[in-house]
C-alpha cells in the first residue's frame, strides 16, 4: 500500500508572520469587550511568545515542521537572536519602536534567510566543498545533484580558445560599442541567433520570432519575471510534481505567489493527468487561492519525460476552460535522447486554434552550452502585453554585453552549432544508457525517460521505512557514507517516497562504475538490515 504525503500543504518557506496572524486574529475576536483590542493582542501574543520559547527549548527542527518564526542561519550570521515578538507583531499596537536590537529586515527576507537549507542545497554545498577528483580527491563527493552539462564542455572551450578575442572586440567594434547602453532585453542580433538555435535544437523547422524574445541573465529570472507578470501576490500556479527544487525559489521568493502541486504517480509513469489537474485546481479554490496558470517543464525535470501532443492539447483545453496561462519550460529540449518526438508548445500554438495570449515558453542556454555562469534565459511569449512588461522588467536581470557579443559570434558559426547539438545529444544518450544500465545491476529501476541528463530512480528497495523519513535516511547515507550527492524526491515534492534524481552530466564514463560501486556498498548494509 503506497503511502503518500499530503500534497496540498503549502511548501515550506512562508513567513512566520502569516502563521502568527492566523492564530492571533481569531483570538482577538474571542477576547473582545472592555480593553478588548489590547487584551486581545496581549494574551495571544504572550501565549505565542511562550509557545515559541518552549519549542525552541525542545531543540532543532526539520524543514518540514510548520514554519517557526524565522531564525538567523547559524552558520553564516553572528547577529544576536532578536526576539520573535517584534517581527511578528510589527503592525499591532504593541509594536515597540526603536531601541531593541538592530534594524529589522523585511519578512520576505526573513523567510528566505531562515529557510533551513533542505537536502537539495545541503547536498550541493557538500559536493562543492569536497568534490570528487580521480587523482586529487578520490574519496570526495560525487556530484549527481546538479543538472549542469559538462559532457560537451570541451567543444565549447575549443571554440572559445580560437575565437574569443575577435568576437568580443571584433574588427569594427571598439569597446565603446559594447560598453554603451543598449536595451535591457538583449541585442536584436543575439535574439536572432538564439531564435535560430532554438529551432535547431528542437530538431524541427520550428520558427521562433526574435521579436517575441526577451533575454535575461539565466532561466531563473525568466521564470520569476513571468510569475510577476501573470500572477498577483496571493495567487497560485499549478505545477505537476515532482518538480525541480529551484522552482520554489524562482516562483515564490519575491513575488508572493504560491505553488499548488499536482501530484503525478509512478503508476502513470509520472505523467500528468487532467483529473489530477482538476482536483488541484478545485483544492486551490477551496483554499482561497486564485489559480493564474500552469507551469510545466518539457522535458520534465526531475523525471525527464516528454509531453506528447495529446497531453499538450489537453493542457491547452484545460487552460482555455479555466482562462489561465501556461508556462512551458523547455530548457532541456537539447538533451532529448529517446525515441519519442519532442513537441514544443510553439508547435501546437502554430498549428491549432488556441488563444496564443496564454502561452509562454521559457528556454535557456545553460543546459545545452554549459559554461559556468554563462547561461542566458529566454522568455518567448505570444502575448504583446507580457512582452512589453517583460522587456522592461529585464532591466533587473540583464545579460552583459561582452557575453552577448560572444554568444552572437558562437551561435552564428552554423557548422559549430550543428556539430555541437548532434554530438552533445549523442553523449547524453550514451551516458543515460550506461548510467541506467549500471543502476539496473543493483536492482534499481529508473523511469523510462526521453530527455534531460538525469534519471529518476526508484531506490525504495534500499530504504528501511517506506516514508519520507526513510528516504531522508537513505539520502544521508548516500551523501555521508557513499559520498554520492543525489536529490531526494521529497525535495522535489514527490508524493511517493524512495525516488531520487541522479544527474550524470558532470560525470565521465569511467566515473559510472565508481558510483555504482559506492551505491552497492551501502545497499548491502541497507538490505542486510531489512
Amino acid at each position, binding site marked *: 500500500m503506497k503511502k503518500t504525503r499530503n500534497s496540498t500543504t503549502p511548501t515550506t518557506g512562508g513567513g512566520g508572520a502569516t502563521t502568527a496572524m492566523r492564530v492571533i486574529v481569531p483570538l482577538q475576536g474571542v477576547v473582545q469587550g472592555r480593553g478588548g483590542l489590547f487584551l486581545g493582542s496581549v494574551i495571544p501574543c504572550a501565549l505565542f511568545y511562550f509557545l515559541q520559547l518552549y519549542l525552541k527549548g525542545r531543540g532543532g527542527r526539520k524543514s518540514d515542521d510548520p514554519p517557526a518564526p524565522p531564525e538567523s542561519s547559524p552558520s553564516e550570521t553572528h547577529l544576536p537572536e532578536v526576539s520573535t515578538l517584534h517581527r511578528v507583531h510589527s503592525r499591532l499596537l504593541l509594536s515597540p519602536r*526603536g531601541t531593541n536590537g538592530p534594524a529589522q529586515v*523585511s519578512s520576505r527576507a526573513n523567510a528566505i534567510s531562515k529557510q533551513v537549507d533542505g537536502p537539495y542545497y545541503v547536498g550541493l554545498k557538500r559536493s562543492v566543498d569536497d568534490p570528487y577528483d580521480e587523482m586529487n580527491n578520490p574519496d570526495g563527493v560525487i556530484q549527481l545533484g546538479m543538472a549542469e552539462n559538462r559532457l560537451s564542455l570541451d567543444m565549447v572551450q575549443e571554440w572559445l580558445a580560437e575565437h574569443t578575442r575577435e568576437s568580443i572586440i571584433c574588427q569594427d567594434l571598439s569597446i565603446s560599442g559594447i560598453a554603451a547602453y543598449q536595451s535591457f532585453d538583449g541585442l536584436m542580433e543575439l535574439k536572432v541567433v538564439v531564435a535560430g538555435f532554438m529551432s535547431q535544437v528542437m530538431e524541427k523547422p520550428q520558427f521562433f520570432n526574435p521579436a517575441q524574445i526577451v533575454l535575461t541573465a539565466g532561466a531563473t529570472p525568466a521564470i520569476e519575471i513571468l510569475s510577476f507578470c501573470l500572477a498577483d501576490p496571493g495567487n497560485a500556479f499549478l505545477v505537476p510534481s515532482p518538480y525541480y527544487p529551484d522552482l520554489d525559489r524562482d516562483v515564490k521568493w519575491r513575488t508572493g505567489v504560491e505553488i499548488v502541486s499536482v501530484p503525478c504517480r509512478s503508476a502513470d509513469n509520472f505523467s500528468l493527468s487532467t483529473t489530477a489537474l482538476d482536483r488541484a485546481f478545485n483544492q486551490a479554490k477551496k483554499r482561497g487561492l486564485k489559480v493564474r496558470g500552469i507551469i510545466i517543464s518539457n522535458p520534465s525535470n526531475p523525471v525527464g519525460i516528454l509531453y506528447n501532443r495529446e497531453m499538450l492539447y489537453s493542457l491547452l483545453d484545460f487552460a482555455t476552460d479555466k482562462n489561465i496561462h501556461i508556462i512551458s519550460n523547455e530548457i532541456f529540449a537539447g538533451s532529448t535522447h529517446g525515441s519519442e518526438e519532442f513537441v514544443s508548445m510553439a508547435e501546437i500554438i502554430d498549428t491549432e486554434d488556441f488563444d496564443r495570449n496564454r502561452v509562454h515558453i521559457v528556454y535557456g542556454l545553460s543546459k545545452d552550452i554549459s559554461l559556468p555562469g554563462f547561461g542566458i534565459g529566454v522568455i518567448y511569449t505570444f502575448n504583446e502585453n507580457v512582452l512589453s512588461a517583460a522587456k522592461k522588467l529585464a532591466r533587473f536581470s540583464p545579460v552583459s554585453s561582452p557575453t552577448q557579443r560572444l554568444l552572437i559570434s558562437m551561435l552564428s558559426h552554423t557548422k559549430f552549432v550543428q556539430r555541437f547539438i548532434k554530438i552533445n545529444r549523442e553523449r547524453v544518450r550514451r551516458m543515460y544508457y550506461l548510467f541506467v544500465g549500471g543502476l539496473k545491476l543493483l536492482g534499481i529501476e529508473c523511469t523510462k525517460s526521453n530527455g534531460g541528463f538525469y534519471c529518476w530512480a526508484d531506490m525504495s528497495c534500499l530504504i528501511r521505512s517506506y516514508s519520507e523519513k526513510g528516504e531522508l535516511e537513505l539520502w544521508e547515507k548516500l551523501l555521508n557514507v557513499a559520498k554520492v550527492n543525489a536529490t531526494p524526491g521529497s525535495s522535489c515534492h514527490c508524493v511517493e517516497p524512495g525516488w531520487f534524481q541522479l544527474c550524470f552530466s558532470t560525470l565521465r564514463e569511467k566515473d559510472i562504475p565508481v558510483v555504482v560501486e559506492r551505491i552497492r556498498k551501502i545497499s548491502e548494509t541497507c538490505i542486510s538490515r531489512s
Partner: protein
Amino acid sequence: MAIEIEKPTVGLSKVAVSDTHGEDSPYFAGWKAYDEDPYDELCNPSGVIQMGLAENQVSFDLLEQYLEKHSEATNWGNRTFGFRDNALFQDYHGLQTFRKAMACFMEQIRGGRAKFNPDRVVITAGATAANELLTFILADPGDALLIPTPYYPGFDRDLRWRTGVKIVPVHCDSSNNFEITPQALEAAYNEAESMNIKVRGVLITNPSNPLGATIKRSTLEEILEFVTSKNIHLVSDEIYSGSTFSGEEFVSVAEVLEAQNYKDSERVHIVYSLSKDLGLPGFRVGTIYSYNDKVVTTARRMSSFTLISSQTQQLLASMLLDETFTANYIKTNRERLKKRYQMIIDGLRNSGIECLKGNAGLFCWMNLSPLLEEPTKESELILWKSMLHEVKLNISPGSSCHCSDPGWFRVCFANMSEQTLQVALTRIHDFMDRRKAMKTSN
C-alpha cells in the same frame, strides 16, 4: 467602446499592467524624441542633442588601450577548469578574485580612507538590480523608504514596481543648496507615520544625482544619527564616487563608520556600480556592500536572479586589480570630468544661466527658474518642451526628479564629445539671446 467579447481574455497581474515603470514621463519622453532625431555632427547637425543620459564617455580611450595591451584578459578559452571549479551553485557567491577586485577598487576611489572586505561584496547585474534587491530585503510591501529630493527618476520604478514599497520624499530646496537637513528627515518620517506607513530606511545618493554634488561629512553624520534614532536602515548609493572632480571632497558613509569604529553599522548598506565611473554600462556590473551579515547572506541568495557571467567577472577582475591602471584611470577621469564641468559652467554663465555649485557626477544642476512664466511645474514643463523642440536639447526637468522648486534642470555633459558640447552651448546661447530680444521688444 463596447465590443462583444466571446471569450474572456486571459488576465495579467497588476505588476504587468501598472505604469510604475514610468516610461511615459517627460524624463523618458525626451529620450524618445532623441531616438527619433538624434544629433550627428556630420549627418544630422540639427538633430536633438542628448543631454539626459548620465553616461561617461570621456575616458573610453583609456579602457581601449588597456584591453589592447592585455588581450589575455579576454582569453577565456585557455582557462582550464580545475577540479575545484565551481559551477551554477556557487555562481551567486561570485568569483573570489572579482569580489576582491571590486573591494580594492572601491578602496582606491576613497583614497584608502575606508576598508572593504571582499566577503561583504554581493554581485548583481547592475546598480538597478542592487537597489531593487536591497529594497526587497529591507522593506515589505506597503512599507516606505525616505528619499531626499530631487532624486534620480529611475528610483520610482526600480524601488517600487515589483517590491510594492513606497517612496516618501524628504524635501530639500534651493534655500540651502538642496542640502539634507534633520528637520526635513523628521518631517518626512512624520508624514509617513501619519499615513500609517512604516518607514524602513533612508536612501541617499552620494554624490547626488541630479545635483552633481557630494554630501558633507557633517550631513552624513546627521543622517546616521537620524536612522539610528529611528532604528531604520541607510542605503548609500555611491555609484558616482569615482566621478568626483577632486579626490578629496568625497566622503563615503564607509569613512564615517570607520571613524566611529563601526558602531551601529549593521543598518548601513552601500550600492556601487562600474557603469558610471568606468563608463561600462553595457557590462551590467553592480554590487551591494553591507555591514549586516543577514543582509549579505540573503542578498547573495537573491542575486541568483541577477547574476553576472563568469567571463565578465574575470575580464574585469584582472583590470581592476591592475593598480597602475586603476590609479591612472581614476586620476585622469577626474581631471577630464572637471574640465568638462568647467566648460559647461562657463558656457552657461556666458548665457546668463547659473548652476548649483557642483563637484562630482556626469551632469550639472541648472537653474532656469528666472525664465519661468510662473513658478509652477506646468511652466517648467512648457520650458522643457521648448528646450526639446526649439533648441533641440534633451535635458531632464526637475519635476521628474520630484524637485519642489520649479525651474531646475539636470544637464549631462559627459556622454558626448567636446565639439558636441560646444554646439549645445551655442544653441543655449542663441536661445537666451532670442529670449532677451523678445523681452526687450515687449
